[in-house]
């Protein structure tokens, strides 16, 4: 079933929509949650929460592109669960590595964390992504949006893990330079 039909079913409050959603995006959401949480059972819980959130948010929302919409909800549920479980623990997980890598980009900068700053930052990141070759952009997004492991990215992109690591390292360095040039890093 295409996405438009699923959204229509949701608007019609037809429970069949959830079955279709699960059939089409269940594994997609599960993978996103699993990347963050690392535990399949926890990821399952997030996926179920995602279905409920989608059900509650459509309507009034009517997303034009469903995968990012659903994926974001799954990711947010997974991050909430991750935060609860890791409130006092650190180190070891895939997501921790992702955070540490991104620490490099933003290292040493203390922001006011305002909504305006975040909006500017997002705008620069979108521009930065637009300048990247498609394959490099996919690597960046797989790592820092989907939180894929380097190993998974290498397999997906048919590259060596070394090359993926080097590419990520360079993209982080380049992003940091752009942020500095744009005055977004002190």
């Amino acid at each position, binding site marked *: 079933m295409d996405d438009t039909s699923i959204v229509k079913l949701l608007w019609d409050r037809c429970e069949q929509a959830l079955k279709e959603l*699960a*059939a*089409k*995006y*269940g*594994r*997609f*959401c*599960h*993978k996103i949650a699993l990347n963050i949480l690392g535990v*399949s*059972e926890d990821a*399952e819980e997030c*996926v179920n929460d995602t279905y409920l959130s989608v059900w509650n948010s459509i309507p009034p929302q009517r997303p034009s*592109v469903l*995968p*990012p919409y659903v*994926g*974001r909800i799954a*990711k947010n549920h997974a*991050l909430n669960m991750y935060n609860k479980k890791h409130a006092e623990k650190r*180190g*070891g997980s895939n997501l*921790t*590595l*992702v*955070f*540490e*890598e*991104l620490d490099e*980009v*933003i*290292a040493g900068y203390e922001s006011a964390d305002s909504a305006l700053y975040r909006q500017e*930052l*997002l705008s620069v*990141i*979108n521009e930065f*992504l637009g300048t*990247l*070759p*498609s394959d*490099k*952009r*996919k690597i960046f*997004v797989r790592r*820092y*949006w*989907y939180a894929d492991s380097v190993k998974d990215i290498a397999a*997906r992109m048919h590259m*060596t893990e*070394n*090359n993926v*690591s*080097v*590419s990520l*390292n*360079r*993209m*982080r360095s*380049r992003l940091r330079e752009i942020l500095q040039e744009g005055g977004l890093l002190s």
Partner: protein
Amino acid sequence: MKGKDLFDVINDIDDKYVSEAGEEAGAVTSPDTAKVPAAKPFLRIVKRYILPGAVAAAALGLIAFGIWSSGVLGNKTVSLDTTTRPTNATEVPTSSTPPESTTLPSRPTDDTTAMPPTESTEATTLPDHTEYPSTGPTDFHGDCTISVSVPQDKMVEKDGVLVPSVLELTITNEGESPLYVEEVFTLQKQGDDGEWEDGAVFRHETMPFKDRCVAAGETSVITVGILPEHYDLWSGPARLVINVHFYEPDPDDWTKILYDTAFYMKAADFYL
């Protein structure tokens, strides 16, 4: 702002990039029979609570049996090894007397033929941590010598174990052309299944290209700081993998990798 905050910002990137990166996954565009693997409630409880408990109980039983059979428990006679092992931190060599470096002959530039990170080191050969630091085998591109050391005053005690707070990577380019270096230090932990998994990644501060160049005949020392929150990761089976990429930057395309190779410094070098 920290990496986590940046991760949150990246969460809101343009949908088209998220879709693009998800395209080839086979999950977004090939939904056939793609259902969430949902375990039944009872099975989930068994998998999540009962099985781990049973495994833990079995492990405890094995340990107890091991202790009993070795004579520590029960009425067997115990013969203790009274060999004194030095544990004084002052015996740690300093970086001013770097460990012996190994220069290997030039090799083909096959990055996968370097020492694989999954190569295991027998636990029985673990050196006492006071033998630390040591320099392990190296594998590299061209005529180059690499060693890793820890300055003596940078060893700190964590839960009774000396751990490094700083690593120094010394690269000497003995060839005739410059080397551009990009390195990643990864501390790996050994899981219960024997597999090595990344526990933490250390890198030096981001450096411009020109500073990454080790000119012909020159030596470069790269210092890497380790965060205190990572000190406890060194306990138990751990190893440091040092992954160094040599490459030539393309001035027209900074994302392009013209040449890339890597080597790994094996576990034995940094067992604690």
